[in-house]
């Protein structure tokens, strides 16, 4: 159980983040400059919030009202950062032993070996950190953090300096490690794939504030604002007027295209912003009654193609698994029934 409510002014930047969750794996996700790392630093006690409250599993770590501020060396949190933070003057084994909780006194060697084996570096105790690859260093850093028997593991983009194939393996091994050591996790990332994989709860931050909290599938399918929609890959963001409202949802007329959206109805005639995921835009052979479009650009991906089409003056993005239509060809656009998602705020929000 994690309850966070912190605010802090840092120069011109204002952090004001509040969320609570029962889940064991929480991901703080958002663009750079959103305040993710600062929130994590508040949790670790490296930064003191101006005001607020932090509670982990019934233990209050910070409460400005009750003047509680547990210093970082008594919070029992494990921290792994993006920059490699192993102590460069100690061996791998000594690094892990450095953080060992007092209960292991007398059994240091055994515990260190257990922890190193758990992160897949059984025989590495006598190496120096400089002799390890980036991925190996982060594994040792995980073992070091676990050595202190933390009540909470705080990871700040720990894998982002590591190459992609290694990063993928580190993520999976982290999940296994959390299961084995039964320690809750707060993980900071700007990579939605990573957030989706690791989070049970995703807390989306932007400009110092929480913009959405939910499960991975939930925030991917139902982004609340255009900022979130862009972050989770719902890249078609359009404006239209509500032309019809029914119990099942509403119909939105975006001029060249008419779509149906579920839930939270707005009054007829309202101008609304909505998004559609590229997977929900289908391209078929042109025919009467369907919305005609022209293929303007093909963007190949590994196993998929993103097709940009022009519909009237509008540019839409469709994601296709099979062979794409040729560049410049005429196609018809169809949208998956109910795939449009109405957003709060305008379509330009979060654009630079």
């Amino acid at each position, binding site marked *: 159980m994690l309850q966070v409510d912190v605010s802090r002014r840092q120069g011109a930047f204002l952090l004001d983040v509040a969320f609570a969750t029962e889940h064991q794996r929480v991901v703080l996700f958002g663009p750079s400059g959103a305040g993710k790392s600062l929130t994590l630093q508040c949790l670790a006690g490296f930064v003191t919030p101006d005001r607020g409250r932090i509670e982990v599993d019934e233990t209050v770590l910070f409460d400005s009202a009750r003047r509680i501020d547990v*210093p*970082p*060396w008594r919070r029992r*949190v494990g921290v792994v950062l993006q920059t490699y*933070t192993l102590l460069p003057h100690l061996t791998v084994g000594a690094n892990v032993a*450095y*953080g060992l*909780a007092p209960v292991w006194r007398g059994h240091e060697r055994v515990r260190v070996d257990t922890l190193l084996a758990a992160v897949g570096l059984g025989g590495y105790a006598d190496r120096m950190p400089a002799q390890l690859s980036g991925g190996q260093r982060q594994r040792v850093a995980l073992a070091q953090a676990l050595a202190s028997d933390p009540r909470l593991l705080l990871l700040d983009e720990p894998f982002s300096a590591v190459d992609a194939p290694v990063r993928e393996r580190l993520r999976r091994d982290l999940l296994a490690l959390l299961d084995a050591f039964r320690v809750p996790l707060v993980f900071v990332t700007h990579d939605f794939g990573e957030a989706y994989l690791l989070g049970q709860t995703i807390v989306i931050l932007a400009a110092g504030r929480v913009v959405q909290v939910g499960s991975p599938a939930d925030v991917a399918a139902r982004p609340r604002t255009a900022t979130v929609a862009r972050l989770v890959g719902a890249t078609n963001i359009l404006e239209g007027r509500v032309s019809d409202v029914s119990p099942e949802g509403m119909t939105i007329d975006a001029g060249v295209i008419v779509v149906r959206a579920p839930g939270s109805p707005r009054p007829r005639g309202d101008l609304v912003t909505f998004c559609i995921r590229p997977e929900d835009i289908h391209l078929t052979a042109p025919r009467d009654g369907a919305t005609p479009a022209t293929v303007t650009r093909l963007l190949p991906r590994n196993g998929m193609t993103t097709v940009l089409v022009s519909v009237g003056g509008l540019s839409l993005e469709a994601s296709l698994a099979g062979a794409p239509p040729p560049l410049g060809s005429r196609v018809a656009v169809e949208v998956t029934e109910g795939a449009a998602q109405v957003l709060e705020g305008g379509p330009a929000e979060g654009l630079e």
Partner: protein
Amino acid sequence: MRVIPRRTGVPWPLNAAGLLLVGYLVTPFLFGLVGLDARGLVAALREAASAGAIMTSLETATLSTLLVIVLGVPLAYLLARGEFVGKAVLGALVYLPLVIPPLVGGVLLLAMYGPYAPVGRWLGDRGIQITDAWPGIVLAQMFVSAPYLVVAARVAFESVDPALEQVSYALGKPPLVTFFRVSLPLAWPGILAGVPLAWLRALGEFGATVMVAYHPYTLPVYLFVRFGARGVGAALPVAAILLAAGIAVLAVVQGVLRRSAGRIVP
């Protein structure tokens, strides 16, 4: 010295101007070397006064350097990591002895510790003589050499990644433990590089010492006295000792810096 102009991107007019200055700075050393004769050097070192000055200088410079390390390393850590109102002012105060001529430092020390000055008279009444005694030499040397050690140690502490200290806190180690097990070991090579510089500055100190403690002779004062009494030729052998110490320290410092750089870069 083969200068490869294109790859370095340093065009020749800049090279020429730069090498002219190097030439100016280096040629006096060559002329000093030429003017020195080996027999004169040995004879000068054999004199009792020379030996006394050498011993006085070595003892006082080493003592003042030790005092400066014990007090200066914590001050450097405070300046590197402390966050408090007036930190910029405190940092500037430490530089003060660097930006005034040592002569002025000597006048100020006399205004405080001199036989007719408040602190000096109070200590003198209790039988502690500062001026014209080794405490005065040490005080003068500490005054001019402390900033060198503090600046070097501050840079060394600042170049320790604060994240390492944070991770140490998170692992349950309070600040004093973290200081001794993380910050100090990692800053140590950089601090070590500052120690010979501070020692050398203490060894070569003249302006403040000549005012506060003309006696017992330190090497620089002795050099000045010999020069006044017997001219450049007699001063050269003593100058050679100080020069040799300087070159040795420079070689050590550059070596230490290079080794520590090698340790930090993975």
